[in-house]
């Protein structure tokens, strides 16, 4: 780990994590764990699960910055996003468990972590490219991805017919996919 990367991470929390500073890390627990706990309890989790997720998220940030070129603007927001997404993933796995899909349920902790990391990195790439689209594309794709019915989409964005809206979505989506594929981070 080069000092250059450390200098780049202006956030003192990030710095403390990378330097393994116990005083500040315990401050991280104190300041940020309650919010993660609250979210997980609200979404049918337990205190023990919140603890695991929080600790895995801290490790995610460390490995991300050291090994995966991760850059963080706002430590608190990013940590919470990672906790949230890890928990979303856990819920998805539980759903699969219900329909008896053994593939994801038997993963060990490290596989779980690694799969999440790859998925999270993809998600960040997709979002980054999504933000490069025109406002109109972003608007219509947001509605589309949130399962808003075509009837409502054409009303909201004043399209003449469902077919024109569908064509527009198709074009925007193709553009987004092109942007994603042309990035070297996508393989």
């Amino acid at each position, binding site marked *: 780990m080069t000092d250059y990367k450390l200098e780049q991470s202006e956030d003192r929390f990030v710095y403390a994590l990378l330097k393994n500073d116990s005083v500040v890390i315990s401050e991280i627990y104190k300041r940020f764990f309650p919010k993660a706990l609250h979210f997980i309890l609200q979404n049918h989790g337990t205190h023990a699960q919140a603890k695991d997720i929080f600790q895995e998220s801290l*490790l995610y940030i460390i490995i991300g910055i050291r090994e995966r070129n991760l850059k963080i603007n706002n430590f608190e927001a990013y940590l919470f996003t990672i906790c949230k997404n890890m928990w979303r993933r856990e819920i998805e796995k539980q759903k699969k468990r219900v329909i008896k899909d053994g593939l994801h349920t038997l993963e060990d902790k490290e596989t779980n972590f*690694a*799969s999440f990391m*790859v998925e999270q990195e993809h998600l960040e790439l997709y979002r980054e490219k*999504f933000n490069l689209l025109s406002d109109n594309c972003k608007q219509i794709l947001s509605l589309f991805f949130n399962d808003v019915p075509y009837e409502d989409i054409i009303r909201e964005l004043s399209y003449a017919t469902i077919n024109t809206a569908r064509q527009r979505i198709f074009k925007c989506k193709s553009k987004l996919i092109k942007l994603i594929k042309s990035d070297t981070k996508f393989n």
Partner: protein
Amino acid sequence: MDFDNIIYEQIEAFIAGRMSEDEKNQFEEKILADNDLRKEVDLHRSLKYAINDKEWFLTENVKDNDEVNSIKKMRRSKEYADIESKIQKIGDQYFENEVKSKKNRKWIYYVSASVAAIFIVFFINYYSVDQSTSSLYAQYSNWKDLPSLTVQSDSENILAKGEHLFFEKKYAQAIVIFSTALEESSGQGQGFEPYILSYLGAAYLGLNDYEKALLTFDELSNSDTVDSSKAYWYKTMVYLKHDDIQKAKNMLNLILKNERNFNFQQAKELLEELD
């Protein structure tokens, strides 16, 4: 790899569930035979979850994924195993302290609630309109060692301020502070409610607002905490100050229903005196 628009249309229809059973089966076979197509479908699918922020897209075939395997290897290395255990250790200390401080808070409000009870007894002792009951309470106000409230002021300055106002007999101001504190603490599970309610009720009693004092103590008795039985004793005090002997006796009888209720022994004695 790039696909033509016809394939894109098919992927779209496949994901949206707009295909007939036959079309669907055909397309699924196509996916199985073509790894690039499978990746493309996955990309289309996961885009949705990346943007809608609701569900999560789980990658399939993790075992064959080189990237996943290399991260897994890294995560298992001694370097990160050490970091992980350090993070957990710091966490364990944090969670231990959390439990301790919760216990402390419980102890603090237990003490403080008793202080409120003590105060009410003093209060009635000195300000009761009825001189005969006043002398009666002299027996029950034999509280020599009042616990220090500085413990409280360290952890919760606002509440300490409220107590200070209360002891200075600035009841109206104390009520404002305790009411606000009560609103803020509700739902946060900090365990301060019984303590705040005790003081709030006593402050209303200080203003001779019997109705509100009783309502507040009712809330305490509904609070489902170890302190809920204290509400009976406090309400007894309210009725006595209001010179309503019958209702005071009813309350004392309630206390006597369970030996574990707050001030069981005193209640027994007081009831005998009143009879």
